[in-house]
């Protein structure tokens, strides 16, 4: 208990973070705990190295990209930034949709933002479009080695073309969203413990 409260005291701007991300106090504490555990030499921020040492991430085909997503600008991520990324995966709750204030910015865990997070994992050059080349790269990561390069390219072509509606040979975010229209993204991009 004592350590708990001391943690709470340590979290800088705990309230504003909570307001922004919608995390509960308990989740925030847990994340902070985790943040400090990942922060090897108590720098107060995380570097790429800190995340790369998580063993399971190394074997995750998208591990590097996900690590990268924590560092939108620069070499380090502080706790608010860390939490902000994780907030995408907070489950959508009823009160989120009910008490939505039109003036307030969309919560980080909205369907749109969840999708956008996934989208920017594909869109490496950040031009707002998943090009065929980018699609191919992701497919290469996802599909096992057992499929030949040629086949991969065919899959990439088809994938792009399937979603590509304006015919520019790339998938824009709108098209990306549309291609996942029928999927329950709110459910598939949420982790229960991040309430």
């Amino acid at each position, binding site marked *: 208990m004592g350590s708990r409260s001391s943690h709470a005291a340590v979290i800088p701007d705990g309230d504003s973070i909570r307001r922004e991300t919608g995390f509960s106090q308990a989740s925030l504490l*847990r*994340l902070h705990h*985790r943040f400090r*555990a*990942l922060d090897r030499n108590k720098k107060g921020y995380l570097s790429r190295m800190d*995340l790369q040492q*998580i063993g*399971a*991430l190394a*074997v*995750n085909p*998208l*591990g590097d990209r*996900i690590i990268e997503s*924590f560092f939108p600008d620069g070499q380090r991520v502080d706790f608010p930034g860390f939490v902000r990324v*994780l907030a995408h*995966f907070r489950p959508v709750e009823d009160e989120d949709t009910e008490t939505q204030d039109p003036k307030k910015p969309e919560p980080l865990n909205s369907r749109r933002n969840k999708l956008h*997070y*996934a989208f920017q*994992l*594909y869109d490496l050059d950040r031009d707002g479009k998943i090009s065929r*080349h980018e699609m*191919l790269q*992701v497919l290469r990561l*996802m*599909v*096992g080695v*057992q*499929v*030949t390069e*040629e*086949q991969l*390219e*065919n*899959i990439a*072509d*088809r*994938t*792009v*073309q*399937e979603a*590509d509606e*304006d*015919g*520019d*040979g790339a998938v824009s975010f709108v098209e*990306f969203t549309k*291609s*996942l229209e*029928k*999927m329950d*993204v709110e*459910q*598939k*991009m*949420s*982790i*229960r*413990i*991040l309430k």
Partner: protein
Amino acid sequence: MLRAALSLLALPLAGAAEEPTQKPESPGEPPPGLELFRWQWHEVEAPYLVALWILVASLAKIVFHLSRKVTSLVPESCLLILLGLVLGGIVLAVAKKAEYQLEPGTFFLFLLPPIVLDSGYFMPSRLFFDNLGAILTYAVVGTLWNAFTTGAALWGLQQAGLVAPRVQAGLLDFLLFGSLISAVDPVAVLAVFEEVHVNETLFIIVFGESLLNDAVTVVLYKVCNSFVEMGSANVQATDYLKGVASLFVVSLGGAAVGLVFAFLLALTTRFTKRVRIIEPLLVFLLAYAAYLTAEMASLSAILAVTMCGLGCKKYVEANISHKSRTTVKYTMKTLASCAETVIFMLLGISAVDSSKWAWDSGLVLGTLIFILFFRALGVVLQTWVLNQFRLVPLDKIDQVVMSYGGLRGAVAFALVILLDRTKVPAKDYFVATTIVVVFFTVIVQGLTIKPLVKWLKVKRSEHHKPTLNQELHEHTFDHILAAVEDVVGHHGYHYWRDRWEQFDKKYLSQLLMRRSAYRIRDQIWDVYYRLNIRDAISFVDQGGHVLSSTGLTLPSMPSRNSVAETSVTNLLRESGSGACLDLQVIDTVRSGRDREDAVMHHLLCGGLYKPRRRYKASCSRHFISEDAQERQDKEVFQQNMKRRLESFKSTKHNICFTKSKPRPRKTGRRKDGVANAEATNGKHRGLGFQDTAAVILTVESEEEEEESDSSETEKEDDEGIIFVARATSEVLQEGKVSGSLEVCPSPRIIPPSPTCAEKELPWKSGQGDLAVYVSSETTKIVPVDMQTGWNQSISSLESLASPPCNQAPILTCLPPHPRGTEEPQVPLHLPSDPRSSFAFPPSLAKAGRSRSESSADLPQQQELQPLMGHKDHTHLSPGTATSHWCIQFNRGSRL
């Protein structure tokens, strides 16, 4: 029909009824000498009756489904039970005593396994494991709760004096009865829910529960039964502990048996490639062995078969041939449906036998009420707890459906029949109550659940076609979630699923999957593959129209599809055996252009060899009957040929001619051809070289595959051979039929005079076909000496037409720049290069789109194509064409 079936039945029934007491009259007196005719009913009686019953059940099913109205309102299970009642009544009337009960032995050993195997094998495993927590809770806690509360409440009812005193049963008896009546029945649930189409989550929870609760039911039943037999006074404290322990033994043991057999099954099918024919049998045998083994060890047999089906499916499906897959699927479905039908019918018949049951209104009504009430209460309580942990909570409507969907069925009936009357004096009352409960749940609840679901507006399952994007993104999401769980440091469901997938990929799949099959089992690949096949089939469906009437106003269609077909067939070839059935379907797609190719090549090579490719060509002709449409095809083709032949003037033609001569058969030929083409044309540029290298590579890999997998190819060849024979002759014929082409080997210019096709068909399309065809395909192997001309033609085209964006990938396969400037574009260009031979998805997707949406594109294209055609011919030197032909051909001939 029904009447006929009944009268048919009456004959053996009459015989069988008397059979136990006295021999049927027909084989009565022993024959003194040789008999012309002998009636040996008793020798065939048992199998004959089994076959008859199944026949009756199947006929009944057919009759029910004659009327769509009836089956849409009344579940089949209800109809079958009612039919069973009627049949039972007839049997009773004819034989004066009840026959053909649902024997517990028959039920557990023969009727139940197919149903469980079917449901386990075709269980959507992802969905199942996603909801495993909920399923296990309902199956274990729910069943225990139902059993104890129902048993205790009935005992309370008896204590309260509402049950007639002649029902002699203590608390243990009621608990025993509660344990057998409490389990939700997989057969009944499946029969009813399959017609209701509730959303997947709801279905998998109810259905999964009904499968997994078997272990609990078995344990409870056995424990209570032995307690009853021991007498309540003799039950020690350790016995209770043993009872609890046996729950784990029975359930985990059953699951373990199932998994062991799943492993064995997967491993066995890995080595069946030379004996494909027994593959389906293996699946059934080992699954059944799992069931029997579990039954023998008094473990949960249902759990064993479920786990066996669930565990082996992925590997077995990858290992066995496509035909075996289809066989397994249909045999399984047939057996399960058969067993289900027979079960419900026998249930109806069994109920008629009044000697077995004794009625007590208090007990029956009490049981019905308690069952419904405690089921609902249990569901609500458990759901409340579960919702604390579930990402997507189960709402009230779901709970109502779950409570109401708790159907009891044949398992309960078989268990109650198994009771020992000497140990359980109230058995007859229990039997009656069980029958009523089963009938009530299956008939009343089964009838009303559909309107209820409609009325409550329960989310229905919606089937949408899988798309590559969805599949890919779903995988991405999975990986993202696993990664986020890593970052958060919480090892939850996603983490473990990811771990399992890693393990599976690294070890299990390597061990259990045939190497050639391993590749095609990637899910994304699988979706892609299926989409391709679907597109190809739909193209076949539309194919006629495309060629005959409207399609030709869309110049993009035929050409694109022809490119697309190439890609599909290539893909099919790449993916090893996979789909011989589909292979043919798709082969038939290869229509006009392939024939064109075939005949062209045929002419060029002077009919020196019989490429296997031709069976394809013939196959397509086989498919498209000789009618006006085909003639049109031919005309289009001839027209194209003439144009093309204009360019075949010089010595290049002869090169091709001689080149193809020394080719041996099969693969060597192709390599030769490639090598020759390369040598003669002196291709040293990156593009051409890479491409041919790629081709050779494929050849080699295929060769390997053919050598190692000879049975596989042989298997697919078995149709191929037939077609080859026909094919060559037909191709030859065609060579003669297309008269103008006959003389083609002597190169001369045939003026593009207006042919029938030109009169009948829109002029542009014929051109368009050729044009885009050349632009997308020939580019692979444009030889150096041709390049400038080619580039000019393309660049002039591009400048003229400024093709719409989505056309770019195809039209600009060869960028309009000289070689030097092209190099920097290699990353862009090269990837698109192999595609020229593999371009199905883009092209078809686009074809569809251009058809549906972009009418704006069409004028542009139409303008463009005649142009291309002309440019094409003026600049295309023979070398291009010949080299193209050869390679193109040889690739094809590999099939």
